[in-house]
């Protein structure tokens, strides 16, 4: 599903320069990997680079999907149009606070990625996810009328509504109470496996990661940056 090697991303200049290094990453369909590490180690930077939002300073290989689309070449060529297309089609983003559009109802927020791609708005998988996540009664509400947990569940359905290959989640449970966080984590894991997606989840919550026995990509601080490696 995802193959990546020698990714280096640099942020800042001079003494504030920080380099994030990911030597190697392999993800198969249904895999969910937790990215863990101390604050400021570059977890979000790594997620941005993997989400094609940040141009790496160095990148060996980055292929996605069964046809192994060469994302590294697109990043090298800075082909913004192709990158935006892949971002909207093959990637799903789950943001810390949901990132829902306040002027759209829950239903329209969830449908937006599908509308953008010209897909039929109705989808059995989306309906199923809404049922599982208890969103059916909230579909006509605006995000402002939802609790934080409801927003995160809505954001998750929106992130997987267009059935992306890779789900990138940036601390999705950070704003939730432990019980709600546990529930959301469990649902993400279940649906990722059901839909044969791959998922990378940035999380500070070691207990939650341990509880679900997720494989981890751990940050190790190095002089001038950090290095992410799978925990053995």
């Amino acid at each position, binding site marked *: 599903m995802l193959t990546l090697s020698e990714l280096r991303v640099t942020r800042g200049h001079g003494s504030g320069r920080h380099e994030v290094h990911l030597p190697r990453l392999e993800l198969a*369909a249904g895999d969910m990997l937790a990215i863990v590490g101390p604050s400021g180690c570059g977890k*979000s930077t790594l*997620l*941005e680079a993997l*989400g094609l*939002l*940040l141009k790496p300073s160095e990148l060996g290989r980055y292929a996605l*999907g069964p046809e192994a689309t060469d994302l590294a070449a697109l990043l090298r060529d800075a082909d*913004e*149009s192709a990158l*935006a*297309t892949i*971002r*909207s*089609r*093959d990637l799903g*983003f789950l*943001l*810390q*606070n*949901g*990132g*829902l*559009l*306040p*002027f*759209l109802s829950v239903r*329209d927020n969830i449908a*937006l*990625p599908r*509308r*953008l*791609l*010209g*897909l039929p708005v109705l989808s059995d998988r989306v309906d199923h996810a809404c049922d599982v996540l208890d969103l059916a009664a909230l579909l006509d509400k*605006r995000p402002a009328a939802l609790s934080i947990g409801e927003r995160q569940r809505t954001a998750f359905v929106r992130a997987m509504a267009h*059935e*992306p*290959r890779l789900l990138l989640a*940036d601390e999705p449970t950070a704003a939730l109470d432990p019980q709600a966080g546990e529930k959301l984590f469990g649902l993400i894991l279940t649906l990722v496996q059901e*839909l*044969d*997606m791959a998922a990378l989840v940035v999380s500070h919550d070691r207990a939650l990661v341990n509880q679900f026995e997720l494989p981890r990509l751990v940050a190790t601080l190095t002089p001038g940056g950090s290095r992410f490696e799978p925990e053995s």
Partner: protein
Amino acid sequence: MSQSPSPVRSCRAGLILRLAIQDLWHDRQVSLCIAAALVAVIAPLLLLFGLKHGVVNQLQRELLDDPRNLEIRMLTSGSYDESWLDEVRAHPGVGFAIGQTRSLNTQADLLRDRQHFLEGVELIPTAAGDPLLAGQARHPESTGVVLSEPAARRLGVSVGDRLTLAASRRLEGQQERGQLQVEVIGLLAAARFARPAAFVDLSLLIELERFRDGHASSLLGVEHGAQRGDYPVRFARARIFAREGDAVAGVVEALEAQRIETASRLAEIDNVRAISRVLGLIFGVIAATALVGCLASMAGAFMANVDRKRREYAVLRLLGFQRPAIAAFIALQVGLLTLLAFGVGLGLFALGSAIFNRALATSHMAAGVVSHITPAHALIALALTLGVALLVAVIGVLRAFNIQPAESLREA
């Protein structure tokens, strides 16, 4: 698992339009504030322009409605033949021209009976196309005359009545009086011609001049006098009318080039032009000031709006909207608010205009003045408003252009 649809461009355009409307509606208080700022400029400007246009139009209409303003009077006499008159008529600015006999011969007595008569009434040659007689059912031919209202009043006659037209001469020591029965075929309002006068066929005037010059005139019932068939027709001057107000200056110039002194209402016409220019300048300065203020206010409001919604734009970009889509999103919002404001502004103009017109109709000072704009004016106003909207959209788009999708992650 993943699908690779090719998004239809028009679907995406429709989606952007729908999102833009949904966002405006969700944020309707702010949207209304922005639109209200625009209405506050559009409605007063339309009213001001409507009044300016109405005042100038009324002045111009008064000028054009009164054909005396088109007349170029020759102050000096000469001797002009028919070909000279043809040349005058051929001038593109001339609407009507007819020869006149010598001043002394343009007078005659009009008698109804012993109690009702006028001595030395002004006889004015006329023909079809005479602007002064515009609206008259008939034009004087042969012995038909059109009387000015003051002449008719003093003679106590109306259309269809008959009068005696008489002229006297002294020939070979003898006082002779020629007479002719004429029929009143029309009356000319005093507003058009304030002096007692009779408008007659040019041939009658020439006959009177011949009679005074000592010729026999069977028409006037005097057989005594010279009998010359080849009497040359010469005119001392001419009645000349310009085709329109703007043509007066050209005709005056052409006549003065022939050393013919003239009198006209060019000054009044220039006055209207000057008023139009000054009102235009005043309106232009006010409009420019208001538009600059409006532009600054709208641009500020939209820039603040873009900053406020930075995260939403970042999310839209994260979901796959590219920069042109975000630009279209903002431009559509500016355009929609502008159209809404223009519609409301136009409605308020119609309302204000109706109030103005009702008030002006009852005012003696401004009777006839109406606040009015033409469809072309409305379209120009719309184009100007959309121009302002375009500038605002450009400023907003430039502000939003650098918003990166990653901001949705960083600022979330």
